[in-house]
């Protein structure tokens, strides 16, 4: 019985597992090997350099800056798009009749190719012909030079990140809310529970699984962000938007330092994994 169960289980896992081994695990381990070389991706010889790439990485201020930029970006985009998505879905829930058109508007950025989105935003952020600053000036507000200012470039790419992400959160929340038990809310209405209390004590707790989902998917998307930042700022000015995957890409594919790029990737992986395991351990200790 046990062996049969094992066999069935392995057969079921096999498709995913084989693809994982072939297209993730194997290349990933291969990249570990590259991380110990000074290979440029072109040279016929891959020169072994030991831990040199890793040692250099720990002295690299750009790497440290990149970690903090990635953290700020990931946390802001994930949190803001989730909260905003929740709020919008809540309003759409109350405004059923017009919700289809709003949903379509919010979802449009999601299906827009990042390349295209970046190009448009680049011009929207332009300090002279960009509609954002034209608008701000018309309102007599300060009009920052968004993408060229070390203080504003990161907020600017975060805005684009949220714009691109918001629709997903809205749709998933809208779907979740449409399946809330109507009867409970009607009962609450009869008891004179206020709208805010209903949200606070009913909608938010009931939506918790959806929230987890929105947060996780948001995190996966945001931590790997590349396209729009690459095209909007290429990481500048002065590294203020240099997120991790951009840093890695530039080292490997622009500066011919594939060995170094691989070392970045492996270090990053180890750090995130370590943090996650630590968080699990803490949570488990808290539970028991």
């Amino acid at each position, binding site marked *: 019985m046990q062996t049969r169960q094992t066999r069935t289980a392995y057969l079921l896992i096999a498709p995913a597992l084989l693809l994982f081994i072939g297209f993730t695990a194997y290349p990933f381990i291969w990249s570990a090997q590259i991380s110990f070389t*000074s290979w*440029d*991706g072109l040279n016929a010889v891959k020169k072994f350099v030991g831990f040199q790439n890793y040692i250099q990485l720990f002295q690299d201020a750009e790497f440290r800056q990149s970690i903090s930029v990635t953290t700020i970006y990931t946390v802001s985009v994930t949190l803001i798009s989730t909260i905003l998505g929740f709020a919008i879905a809540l309003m759409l829930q109350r405004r059923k009749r017009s919700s289809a058109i709003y949903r379509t508007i919010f979802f449009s950025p999601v299906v827009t190719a990042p390349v295209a989105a970046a190009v448009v935003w680049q011009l929207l952020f332009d300090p002279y012909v960009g509609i954002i600053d034209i608008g701000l000036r018309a309102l007599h507000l300060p009009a920052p*030079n968004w993408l060229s200012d070390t203080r504003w470039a990161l907020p600017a790419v975060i805005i684009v990140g949220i714009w691109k992400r918001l629709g997903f959160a809205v749709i998933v929340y809208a779907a979740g809310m449409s399946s809330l038990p109507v009867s409970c809310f009607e009962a609450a209405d009869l008891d004179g529970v206020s709208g805010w209390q209903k949200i606070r004590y009913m909608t938010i707790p009931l939506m918790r699984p959806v929230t987890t989902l929105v947060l996780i998917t948001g995190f996966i998307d945001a931590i790997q962000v590349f396209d729009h930042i690459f095209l909007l700022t290429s990481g500048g000015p*002065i590294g203020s938007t240099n997120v991790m995957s951009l840093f890695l890409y530039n080292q490997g*594919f*622009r*500066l*011919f330092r594939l060995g170094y790029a691989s070392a970045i990737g492996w270090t990053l992986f180890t750090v995130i994994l370590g943090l996650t395991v630590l968080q699990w351990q803490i949570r488990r200790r808290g539970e028991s």
Partner: protein
Amino acid sequence: MKRTQRSLASILSLAVLATVSLGTGSAIAANKVVKPVTIQFWNYWDGGNGKALSALISEFNKKNPGITVKPVTFPWGDLLPKLQTAIASGTTPALAATDIAWMANMNQSGKLVDLGAALGGIKKATGDIYPSLLTYGLYKGKLQSLPASTNNLSLFYNKDLFRKAGLNPNKPPKTWAEMRAAAIAISNLGNGIQGMEIYVQPGEGLTWQFQPYLWQSGAGFLNKTNTAPTFNSAAGRSALQFLVDLINVDRAATAGQWGAFDKGQAGMRIDGSWMVGGYRENAPFEFGTAMLPIPEGGVRATNMGGEQIMAFKGKAASQAAAVKFIRWFTSAPIQARWDVATNFMPISDTVANSTVILKHVASEPALKAFIDQQKYAQARPAIASYPAVSDAFSKALEPAFYGRVGVAEALANADAAVRKALKSN
């Protein structure tokens, strides 16, 4: 439930079908009898340049039955990872044209065809192509690529803004002092208009735009053996100071994104001859060009850009076809027509003095500055660590443009970073 199942099944069969049919479509055609070859030519010449290339290629294909060259265009920055993966996995195209700045690395790949041997000797292969252009193709005594185009940086200026600022639109600045005065006058027009647009985004763009200032002021970039930086000198500091002052003292320029000149929002900019065609067609203002202004007591200098064309080792038939195409494409008559279509600069005197080119230059006055200036164009160091050097250099300079560090400190930092990068590869 049933419905979901059925639609899932139909989607699956559709997907499988599509995969299979597309898979066979893209397989390389294996013909047995006459063996016509189809070869790919990877490049980053898009838009008008791409159209010009396609037109020339179809002419070549017609003239050479049995050979079909297929141009494939990728965005500039993306061609490099494409080539890296192709070389690493042995899936190189038969032909490619790449940025000269990548050549040192391409040369070491061991995948390039020795064009000297294939074309009957280096001398015969190169003819009177300017020697400065050949440095990129020569590697360990072998010729591994040929210049496909060249270009340089000159001054573009907005005649409309010159007029508005009370400057003579037919008298572009000749010296740094004049350039500074003009920039200040134009920026005084207000409305966020910059006198001069300066490239400050880190990367090769910044380095390649800044090097002419270094050379003009008498400073170098690297020493003759390409082993140590030479820009950290009084002359080098004066060059950087000039630009930093334009931004932070005169407020005649802004440190930030590139592109204001295109929109008519900047009075001057340094750029390449390839912009001439686009501006003539689409610029919302009247523009002029001039040789780069030089400092008091300085020398003429500009930066040399361009592409090299190369063949990759592979099956004998496609390799021979690739070599044949290179010989044809780098021949003077074809180069002359290529330059007319793209506004790139001639690669040899034969091309430069051909009637086609002379007629074209006469009809497009904006090209004159570039032609006159080509002989002052300097080549960037053709070493494998150059991309890393350039990146380190640009990143050390960037904060100076934003006024975060002083000029002396920025160049000292750049010196240290470049020394480190020189050792990296």
